[in-house]
């Protein structure tokens, strides 16, 4: 479904003096994919993006983006990638239009006027094009910065926390834009703290805390880190009902409450009818049966919390 590998990091490491910000990251992103990059504050997300985007060099390991080594040929790489930096970094005393014109002016083979107009309109800033960027709201600044990152139609886009600090509506708009970019076949590397956002946008998710902790599709992450749970609500949980459930070989764990049983099963589809039959046979009067899927947040917290080997 996706193309060839277009971003490859192998053993990517960055030390600042004696402090290791990023260690041994191995990631491959395929053409057209949207990769979510998750991790707590200080996990090394921005540092990794900077290394992949040719802003800083790794202290060990290598990266290859669009067939180019970012640390060796940054200028050539920059023709084909766009970077939305963590801080918008606009020229506040220049108009929105001039901000874009300036940045567009650094690329080869670009129709500056046409691209500036296209992106000002796309970002809903056309009517404010001659206003100073300094007077813009946070959401407008973020959209202008996004326009700046896209002005040369890069095939790979790095977005460092594109929706942070935006109100829900502005964040929603930015997410829609990112979806649109993805449908245009661009490869998108997006760091975020917003887990539902990552789940709705990304085909795969990487969780990092200095080291890469996990890299998979959201569904596979669920399977790997959590077993789905079955919750059976009934009038009253009796000892007989509990014993009947416990006797089943595929029940991995069981939690008993006043009027509900929560069970972790090996295989939801195959096992759940048998569980239901067993508890009914033991005399339970079932009110409802629900399946609970862990949220991405559960997985994330499980990954980044209390792992001594990851504590810096």
């Amino acid at each position, binding site marked *: 479904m996706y193309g060839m590998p277009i971003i490859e990091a192998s053993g990517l490491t960055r030390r600042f003096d004696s402090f290791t910000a990023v260690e041994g990251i191995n990631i491959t992103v395929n053409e057209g994919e949207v990769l979510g990059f998750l991790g707590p504050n200080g996990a090394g997300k921005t540092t990794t993006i900077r290394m992949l985007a040719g802003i800083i*060099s790794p202290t060990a390991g290598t990266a290859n983006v669009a067939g180019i080594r970012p640390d060796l040929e*940054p200028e*050539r790489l920059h023709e084909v990638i*766009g970077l939305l930096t963590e801080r918008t*970094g606009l020229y506040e005393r220049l108009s929105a239009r001039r901000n874009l014109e300036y*940045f567009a002016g*650094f*690329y080869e083979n670009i129709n500056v006027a046409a691209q500036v107009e296209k992106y000002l309109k796309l970002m809903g800033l056309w009517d404010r094009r001659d206003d100073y960027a300094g007077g813009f709201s946070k959401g407008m600044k973020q959209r202008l910065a996004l326009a700046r*990152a896209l002005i040369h139609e890069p095939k790979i886009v790095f977005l460092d926390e594109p929706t942070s600090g935006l109100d829900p509506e502005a964040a929603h708009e930015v997410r829609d834009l990112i979806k649109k970019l993805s449908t245009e076949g661009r490869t998108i590397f997006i760091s975020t703290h917003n887990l539902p956002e990552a789940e709705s946008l990304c085909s795969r998710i990487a969780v990092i805390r200095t080291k890469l902790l996990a890299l998979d599709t959201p569904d596979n992450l669920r399977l790997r880190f959590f077993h789905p749970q079955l919750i059976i609500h009934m009038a009253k949980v009796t000892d007989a009902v509990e014993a009947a459930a416990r006797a089943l070989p595929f029940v991995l764990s069981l939690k008993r409450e006043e009027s509900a049983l929560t069970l972790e099963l090996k295989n939801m589809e195959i096992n759940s009818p048998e569980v239901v039959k067993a508890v009914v046979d033991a005399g339970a009067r079932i009110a409802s049966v629900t399946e609970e899927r862990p949220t991405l947040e559960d997985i994330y917290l499980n990954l980044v919390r209390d792992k001594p080997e990851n504590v810096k």
Partner: protein
Amino acid sequence: MLNKRVKNILLKEWQVALHDLNSLLMVTLLPLLIIAQAVTVFWAIQEFAVDSILGLDIVQKALSNLIQTVPAVGALPAVQQIQVFLLSQMMFYILLIPTMIAVNSATFSIVEEKLSGSLEALLATPLHTWELLFGKALAGAVPAVILTWICTLIFFLAVRIMGWGALISLVVTPAWYITILLLAPLMALLSFLLGVIGSSRAKDAKSAQNSIILIIFPVFGLIALQVTGALWFTVVPTILLGILLAGVNALALWSAVKLFRRESVVIRWK
């Protein structure tokens, strides 16, 4: 050297500068002060100190150098000889003007963009490091040269008002033209390159200023060479000086690129 990316930087730098009238005024005021100071000193010397200066050995030596270069000076009365001698020193003194301007503006150029975060976005474009540094330096050097020329005109105007006007033709030798048209631009570019180097390495504009002050000493050296009569700058030494300066400029740009650390963008500002 003047490719589209460098031109792009020039236009933007000038546009931003025009928006900042306060700093623009500050930058213009300083060279005018330098000129005013020089004129005052010249006037004071002729009023109060001609005799004692004439008595100095080194001044006699410098004067004979001067008369060798411009024989017409020999025919003038002693007081006017001193006046021509003083005016001739202005040739190198004027070179301090672009440096002064650079101290006050070049040093902000990169640091400011680091602090605002725009430098990282800039480094994510196909802009080469040399283009960024050269563009930034040139953006300051060009107006600095124009300002230097304007100051030179103002200086001669003041000299006329002081009543020394008749001597100007004796002072403005070919070496003067070379100084104004060649050395001043080279000096301006060098000052701004040093400023940009300082700015790209420093954490704030203040520490960047220190690096550039250094350039003032060689200029004083030139003035001293001439005042002490050790060497009088006629056409050939001046052209040689120009070639040397051009080489130093190339070296400065080269080391600016070497010294520039992309990494410095990500330094945490406390």
